């Protein structure tokens, strides 16, 4: 009985940690989904740019010994700038109906950013600062890591800020208008290009937070994270339902919990395999995602 109890606590603890870390996946998923909602296109540079933002923050840490909050802030800002650059280079001047060209351009952007990071760091992992990593809360039999709690709090704050902008500001009204009916948006006096650029910057800011929080939770930043984070982000976007923000949040947490569950039972080498299996199951049985309605895009 006590063996079983011990095991139960271990498993739920692992899943719980996964849910906390899953908040970063949720943010990356929101970023992908936001841009898909606006333009009907995938911005493949997104996860790479998010991590590149974190690298920019890390540079501030390495060269001027900036405190962690400043590192996180710089991460977000740098990633926002990269979002704008990605818009200009991969989307703005490519005809709106040429989806494949934009997709290929942004995949090129993904590898370009990744290569830049590899060259700047010689590809070796670098230590990333964390906040509250020496804090541990005891909740009954469970321990809550202070740094993971902070990661979750930052992701929640980022998401709330985004929702505020989307649903309570003029800018958000324009963003939603363009994503739902771009001709009518123009007729209302909304500049589609400017609004799309803003969407990329907003997504970028969010990505920078996600990138910094990912690095902060793992403790290191390495170019090896880029492709897995891109894949996780896309999985979260698809499972949540393309274009659905609540879906991305739910799917991010789901993937985070799920992957730790299999980490516990099958180890780190097999973990991602099961996450891909989860994607497969969704694609077969619920291709519209958790909150997608199937006919959501008009």
């Amino acid at each position, binding site marked *: 009985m006590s063996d079983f109890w011990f095991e139960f606590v271990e498993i739920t603890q692992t899943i719980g940690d996964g849910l906390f870390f899953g908040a970063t996946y949720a943010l990356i998923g929101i970023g992908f989904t936001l841009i898909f909602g606006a333009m009907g296109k995938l911005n493949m540079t997104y996860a790479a740019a998010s991590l590149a933002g974190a690298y920019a923050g890390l540079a501030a840490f390495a060269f001027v010994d900036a405190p962690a909050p400043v590192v996180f802030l710089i991460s977000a800002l740098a990633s926002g700038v990269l979002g704008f650059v990605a818009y200009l280079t991969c989307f703005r001047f490519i005809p709106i109906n040429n989806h494949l060209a934009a997709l290929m351009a942004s995949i090129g952007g993904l590898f370009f950013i990744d290569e830049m990071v590899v060259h700047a760091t010689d590809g070796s992992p670098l230590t990333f600062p964390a906040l509250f990593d020496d804090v541990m809360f005891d909740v009954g039999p469970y321990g809550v890591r202070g740094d993971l709690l902070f990661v979750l709090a930052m992701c929640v704050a980022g998401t709330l800020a985004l929702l505020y902008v989307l649903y309570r500001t003029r800018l958000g009204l*324009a963003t*939603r*208008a363009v994503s739902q009916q771009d*001709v*009518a948006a*123009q*007729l*209302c*006096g*909304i500049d589609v290009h400017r609004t799309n650029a803003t969407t990329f910057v907003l997504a970028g800011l969010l990505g920078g937070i996600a990138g910094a929080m990912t690095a902060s939770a793992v403790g290191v930043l390495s170019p090896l994270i880029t492709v897995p984070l891109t894949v996780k982000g896309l999985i979260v976007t698809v499972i949540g339902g393309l274009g659905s923000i609540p879906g991305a949040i739910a799917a991010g947490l789901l993937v985070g919990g799920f992957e730790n569950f299999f980490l516990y039972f099958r180890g780190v080498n097999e973990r991602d395999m099961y996450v891909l299996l989860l994607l497969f199951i969704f694609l077969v049985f619920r291709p519209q995602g958790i909150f997608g309605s199937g006919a959501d895009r008009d």
Partner: protein
Amino acid sequence: MLSIRDLVTSYGNIEALRGISLDAAEGEVTCLLGPNGAGKTTTLFTIAGILTAKSGAVVLNGEDMTRLRAAEVVSRGIALVPENRLVFPRMDVEDNLRAGAYSRRASAAEIAADVADMYRRFPRLEERKDQLAGTLSGGEQQMLAIARGLMARPRILLMDEPSIGLAPMIVAEIFDIIRELNREGVTILLVEQNARMALDVAHKFYLIEGGRITFSGSPGEIEQDEVIQRAYLGSRQG
């Protein structure tokens, strides 16, 4: 007020408008009639800045609007209520109206006052104000699209086939709204396939066929039946 001169617009190599000229006078309903594919929507899209004219001019009260982009056109006083409504489907009714005022950079209080004004004019929209626009009936969506256009406080309202796809009773209601708006002094350029209803509200009409204006006049001046027939079927290639 609104004056169009020799407007030419093409899609690639195909000229959709081959030199359109027309005038819409202040306070009047001007009607553009014609069969499918004659260039009616293209004319309105070119005026609104969604499409760019190859040559010719669009002038509103002496100000040249030909090369302006859509966002600039609406802020200078031309609002288009597009064909098929094109409401923002996943926004509630109230946000749709607010989006209509986007070009004005007005204060929140001013916009709220105008929204209230729209609710007075269209009580059905007030009943549905928290409902997503995509869930409204066709007639309600058309009212919403008209109200959204009015939220820009335009000097002239362009309306593209407001009766399309609506039941006859609702069509009559929409035309009552057009008449009412005009009585209040709104200048309207109306594109319609429903020529009989349109001629009933129009002060002046133009017939467009094959990208050219082939006839113009005032209702009553000529045999209405001939106009109506040509509006539906077209005549020889103008």
